[in-house]
C-alpha cells in the first residue's frame, strides 16, 4: 500500500508530547486539512467534521497524535490522528450518535485521501446506497459508504455497509467503518466476481 506522508518525520515536533510509540508503518491524518484535501467539500462541512471527530475521539479520552490502526484493502498500517483540541463541555448539546457518524465521516475522508488519493466530488442522497461520490487518481468515479461506531464490532458493520454500497450504480464501490474507542478504521473496496460465480456477487478485494 502506497501512502502519502508515510514518514514518521511528518509528526510535528510541537505535538510530540502527545505521541505514543507505535510499531510499523505510520502516517499522519490531519483532520484540520480536510478542506485542502477535498476542495469540493464545503468548508463549513469540513470544519464540522473536524469538530465532531474531536468530540467523538476526546470523549474516549484520546488526544491529538493518537495512533489509529487501519486496515485498507486488508493491508494493516497505523495512522496518527491530528485535530485541534475542543471543549467537550460545549459539545454536550450535540446528538451522541450524530457525533459518532460525523466523526467517522471526517476520519474516513482524510483516510481515503491519504491512502488512495481519492477526492470528494459530491454528496449522494439517501437512495443512492452510498454517502459520497469520489474520484480516484485516474478519474474513475467511486461510491463510498461510511459507518461509525463507538465500541461495537467494526467488522460486522463493514459487512453491512459493503452489502449496502454493492447496490450503488457506480463501478467502483467501497465502504469504510471507524471504531472510535480503539480507534480503528477499515476501508474495503468491492470487486465483482468475473468467472465461475453468479454475476454481480461481491467479493472483498485483497482477500
Amino acid at each position, binding site marked *: 500500500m502506497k501512502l502519502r506522508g508515510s514518514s514518521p518525520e511528518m509528526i510535528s515536533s510541537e505535538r510530540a508530547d502527545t505521541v505514543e510509540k507505535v510499531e510499523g508503518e505510520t502516517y499522519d491524518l490531519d483532520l484540520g486539512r480536510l478542506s485542502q484535501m477535498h476542495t*469540493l*467539500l*464545503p468548508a*463549513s*462541512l469540513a470544519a464540522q467534521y473536524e469538530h465532531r471527530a474531536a468530540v467523538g475521539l476526546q470523549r474516549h479520552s484520546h488526544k491529538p497524535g493518537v495512533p489509529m490502526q487501519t486496515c485498507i484493502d486488508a493491508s494493516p498500517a497505523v495512522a496518527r490522528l491530528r485535530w485541534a483540541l475542543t471543549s467537550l463541555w460545549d459539545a454536550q448539546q450535540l446528538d451522541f450518535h*450524530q457525533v459518532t457518524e460525523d466523526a467517522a465521516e471526517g476520519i474516513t475522508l482524510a483516510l481515503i485521501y491519504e491512502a488512495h488519493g481519492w477526492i*470528494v*466530488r*459530491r*454528496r*449522494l*442522497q*439517501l*437512495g*443512492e446506497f452510498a454517502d459520497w*461520490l469520489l474520484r480516484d487518481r485516474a478519474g474513475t*468515479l467511486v461510491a463510498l459508504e461510511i459507518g461509525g461506531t463507538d465500541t461495537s464490532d467494526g467488522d460486522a458493520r463493514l459487512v453491512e455497509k459493503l452489502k449496502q454500497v454493492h447496490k450503488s*450504480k*457506480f463501478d467502483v464501490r467501497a465502504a469504510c467503518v471507524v471504531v472510535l474507542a480503539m480507534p480503528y478504521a477499515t476501508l474495503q473496496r468491492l470487486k465483482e466476481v468475473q468467472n465461475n460465480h453468479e454475476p454481480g456477487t461481491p467479493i472483498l478485494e485483497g482477500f
Partner: protein
Amino acid sequence: MSLEPLYSKVSEAIRKAESMEDDGDPGAEEAYGEVSQLEEEIARLLPASNAEGALARRGALRAALAAGDFTRAVKLKDRYETEEGATDELRRELIEVWEVARRSRASALTFHWTLEVLRMELTAA
C-alpha cells in the same frame, strides 16, 4: 454556475436537508426543494448518458418527491424520460425512484395522481 461550485452547494444542501429531516424539522421539505433545484441545475450541465448526469436527474426527481412537490416531480420525470440521450437504464432508474417514493408516500401520491388524471381529462375535454 459551473459544475464544481454546484457540487459543493448540493453537498451542503443534502447534508442540511438530511439533518433537518432527522430532527423532525418542518423545514426539511423546503430544504429538499432546494436540493432538487440544485440537482436540476447540475443535470443541465451534464448529458443524460453520463453517469453523473444520470445521478443528477435521479437526484432532482428524488429530492422533489422528498420535498412533497409532486407537480414538479411529475414534470421532471416526464422531461428526463423523454429527453435526448436518455438511456433505457436511466428511464428504469427514474421509475424506480418514483416507485420507492410511491410506496413510502402512497396516499399523497395517489391523491396527486388522481388530480393529475382529472386535470388531463379536463384539458382534453
